[in-house]
Each structure stands twice: as structure tokens, then as C-alpha cells.
């Protein structure tokens, strides 16, 4: 019986040390900071997977707008269908399938485009339009007020352009234009 107890204690110590060792090794590589998912708009090809593959019924990926880059074009290629007859707010001339982009007149000939996040489904159609013919001021980002920060983001797994990565929670967005500077200071 004694011998058995001895072997048992040995195994216990071995198990304890193994866990301790792994934990120590992990700690040496760990960060106290949470990692969160973000997509790099410079790699994104707007495949529309973002709008359907999120675990949330209403995807956590939305279109964002770097106003600092926007040309405020009357003829916005992110807002209007390529063959749109009129440059207006009619549903048939809009590119966005859910009518999430609001067009407001600022001054001749400038218009401001604002995304209504509750309507945006993150399909990236507008992004494609803006990227192809405009300044690229519209792009997709994970919105962290919506994202559940899944251990394995189900969009990241299927993203055809490998645009997704884990980023530190203190720099949770990959922005364009002047807006990107907000993470440089910190």
C-alpha cells in the first residue's frame, strides 16, 4: 500500500509540475491584454462573407467611413449603382442593398455620406464601389460594441483574403486616413 501511495504522490507531483511548467511558459509569452479580432481593410476583397458568416444574425462587421479621406463626391461610387440614372436618393439608384447610407447635401458640389450601422449588414458592396472608383474612404471593420470576440471568429476562418487577425484590445481598429493616427499616440 505504501509503495502505491508513493507512486501516486510521484504522479501527482509530476502532473502538478507539468501544469506549472506549461503555465510558466505561457505566462512568459502572454499579454495581460485581451486580443480581439479585426480585419485589415487593405487586404479585404469585399467577398460578402463578412455579412453572412458572423455568428451574430446581424453581423458585427459594419462599414465605416474615414471622413478625412472622403472626396464628398456628388457622384459617389460607393453610394450609387454603376448605371444609376439619377444622382439621387432613390432606392433604385443606391448600391447599398439595405439603404444604410445616408446622403446629405453639405454645399455645392459636396455631399456627406453617413452609415446607419443598424441597417448596414456589412456586405461591403459600397466598399467595393468606393475602393474601385473612389478614395477608399469606406471600408469594413468589426465593431467592438457588437462583436462577441469569439475565440475563433467564424468569419476569420473563411475570409478568402486572410484579412483577419488578432490585435491587442488597446488598438482594436485598423483605420485609414487621419483616423488611423488615433492609435499611434497611445
Amino acid at each position: 500500500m505504501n509503495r502505491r501511495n508513493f507512486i501516486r504522490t510521484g504522479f501527482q507531483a509530476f502532473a502538478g509540475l507539468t501544469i506549472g511548467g506549461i503555465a510558466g511558459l505561457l505566462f512568459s509569452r502572454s499579454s495581460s491584454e485581451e486580443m480581439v479580432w479585426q480585419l485589415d481593410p487593405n487586404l479585404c476583397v469585399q467577398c460578402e462573407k463578412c455579412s453572412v458568416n458572423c455568428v451574430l444574425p446581424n453581423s458585427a462587421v459594419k462599414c465605416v467611413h474615414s471622413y478625412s479621406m472622403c472626396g464628398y463626391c456628388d457622384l459617389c461610387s460607393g453610394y450609387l449603382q454603376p448605371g444609376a440614372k439619377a444622382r439621387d436618393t432613390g432606392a433604385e439608384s443606391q448600391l447599398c442593398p439595405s439603404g444604410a447610407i445616408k446622403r446629405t447635401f453639405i454645399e455645392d458640389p459636396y455631399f456627406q455620406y453617413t452609415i446607419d450601422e443598424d441597417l448596414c449588414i456589412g456586405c461591403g458592396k459600397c466598399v467595393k464601389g468606393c475602393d474601385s472608383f473612389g478614395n477608399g474612404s469606406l471600408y469594413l471593420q468589426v465593431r467592438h460594441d457588437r462583436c462577441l470576440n469569439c475565440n475563433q471568429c467564424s468569419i476569420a476562418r473563411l475570409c478568402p483574403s486572410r484579412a483577419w487577425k488578432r490585435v491587442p484590445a488597446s488598438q482594436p481598429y485598423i483605420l485609414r486616413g487621419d483616423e488611423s493616427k488615433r492609435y499611434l499616440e497611445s
Partner: protein
Amino acid sequence: MRQRTRLLKIIFVFFLLVVPSLDLSQVRERFPKPDFQTDYVRPNLITPATRSPILEYMDIFVLVAVLFLVTYSAHKQRSRRQIFLLMVFSLVYFGFYRKGCVCSVGAIQNVSYALFTSAYAIPFTVIAFFVLPLIFTLFYGRTFCAAVCPLGAIQDAVVLKPTKVPAWLANVLGVIPYIYLGLVLLFAATGAGFIICQYDPFIGFFRFGASFGMVIFGLSMLLLGTVVARPYCRFLCPYGVLLSWMSRLSKWHVKITPTECNNCRLCEESCPFGAIKKPSETVHLENRQAEIKRLAVLFVLLPVVLIGTGWIGSRLNIPLSRQHFTVSLAEEILLENSGKRTEMTDATTAFRAAGKPTEELFEEARIIQDKFKVGGWIVGGFIGLIIWIKLINAFIRRKQPEYYIDTGMCLSCARCFSYCPYEQVRLGIITPEEADKLGTRKVKIKQFRA
């Protein structure tokens, strides 16, 4: 101003023609930024913050607190009721509130990924969720499974009419978690993805949404769970493998009886997970001889088994590595280059647009396939070893004078306690004399209590 619009139109048409030849990955500023005449101010791009770090640490705090409470309830209070209430709490907190992420089961993958990918800084919270339940189990048994794990909790809540799984079947199915664990480690280490998360049957319930396939899988698991208690925990969960190792070594594990066992057999059928084992008869000497012979054969067979399963594992490297993005992309590119496929996929389009040389991609893919080959040997050998140990266990019979708990399988749920007459004595429901009378043995056996 009109002219300006026309100019823009011309530029627009120009870009229509020229753009396809441009590199799409670059950010362009094709149109000048406007100089506003009015005092218009550009709106600020709102970037909502991530979940506060304080809340992350609160998750760790809740984990430790619930682990302590469950352990206390199981060991000292011996109260199923308390454990049940804690289980409901965990289901609500870790399941529905935290939506199943971060979870200890999934943390295996982060650990494996972090150990093999130095670029990945594994968050502190994830380490805590991985390590703490293991440490607790090494001391007190799988109290984590009893009432902390949300996956366990949701299954435990639907245990209605648990039936007995025949021991041989349970043993055979018991190999699946080891295979799953091996694959999980392999996939995470090579960067092919986190398959536990991908095939988590219950996460859809916590989030009120999942793909159709996963909803069906989850529902059938829960349905099955009404008659086969906790099927995921017993026959799939890869973390359960690690926990069962720890639990087998646990310093203090729960006991069915608070004091003694008189082999009254009342607890025999009480465990829905088949963790209560009957006392085994004395082993006869003639059998012993044959047994030793069989053991000798098994020992000789060990290297054959290991090499065999390892070889099978390494041969699976091609189909398995296909799960890795780089490998599947390389195969698609290869198909397209050879003209076997004319339709380009999103992935190949993106790859070609990025302009990386295909040779580089093929080289990367080959390295990953090699990793899968080495990993396949290790995982295959590991599974072979497990099967071999299971065979050995089936042949070795130890003398066991009383009803006992298989500590590897027991989830410390406290269901069986109240079946024991001595527990009834402890609770003051019956007298010690009444309890003694229920026994089949003349001499009572005192249980070792730490």
C-alpha cells in the same frame, strides 16, 4: 461649380477604364479632399471600445469563486441542491451572459497555438481558464465539470431518464475524446484553426443562432442527452481527457459514502454517467497465469501498435492539412494553373491580386504538410498508446472490496451521495442501526477519508 462636377465625371470615366490595371490593395486618393466654404466640420469616426479589461478579470474572479463554492458544496456540504444552483448560475453567466467564450475547453487550442506560434501573445484570461480547473481537479476531482462548465451545465439540465451505456461500448466510445484532443492540438499547433469552436454543439444555444448544421447537431446532442447523460462530456470533450487524468490523481476526491460502505448496493445504479463500479471478486490463480501470458503478448505488441497508428496518422497528412487555408489555397492555385479549373474563387482572386509569387505559396504549403506529417506520427502514436492502455486495463483486474467511484469518469455531481444509507444517517434521516441492517456484509468497511 458646374464645371467642377463635369471634371469629376471625366475623372470618373477615366478611372473606370484604368482602374482594373491598378493594384487594388493600395489605398487611393483619386479625388482631392474638398475645401469647404461653409464652416462644415467633418464628423468623427466613432470607434466603440472593446470589452473593458476589468470585466475580463471579473470572469477569472467568477471562475475561481464558483470553483471554490462547488468544491465546498461537493466535499463539505455534500449537497446536490447547492451544486445544481451553482450549475444554473454558471449556465447563465458563462453560457448566456458570456455567450460561451472564453471557455476552458476552447482554451486548449489557444495554449497549443501559443506554444507553437511565438507571435501569438496568449491573453492572461485564457491561461487562467485553462490552468485553474486543472489545478482544482488535481486536488478535488472534476468539480469544474459538476457545475462550472457551461457546456456540461446545459447537458446536465436535460438529463431526464439516463440509461446505462454498456461498459464495453463506453470504453470504445471513450477513445473518441482522445482522438479529438489529438486533432485539436494538431490543428491549433499548425495554425489550421480552432476546431472545438467550429464544432461546438451548444454555443448556438447560448447565442441564439448558429448555422443549420450546427443547430441540428446541438439539438440531437441535447435530445440524446435526455437518455445518455452528458454525451459531449463523456464521449467528445477533449478538455475532459485532461481533467480525467488530473482527477485520477486527485488528492481528495468525493466519496459516495461519508463514512463507511456495507455493500448495500443502493448506490449501484445512481450514477447517470456510469462512474460507480461494482466490487470485483477475488481473482483466481489459474486465471492469473493466463492473464500474465496475455499481458506479455500485449507488451510485445506495444511497439507494433505505436508504429502502426503513428504511420496511419502520418499518412493522413494530406487530407488533414487541407483544412489549413494556405494548403487549400495552394491546391486551388495548382488546379487553376494546370487548367483543370477555370472558375477562380474569391481566395485565388485575392491571392493573385496581392501579387505574391506562387512558388512562395507552394513552399509554405509544403512546410505545413510536413508539419502535419510529423504531427500525424505523434498524434497517431498517442492514440495507439491510449488504445493499448485501455486494453491493458481490460485485462488487469484489481481486487476491490466495495462500491467505488471511477475517479476519471466521476464529475463530482453529488447525485449518488443521498443513495447511501450512511449519508442518510449523516443527514439524520435514519439511525445508524437501520443503515447497518441494509448491508449485505457482516463486517463493515471503513472508507478512507482524507
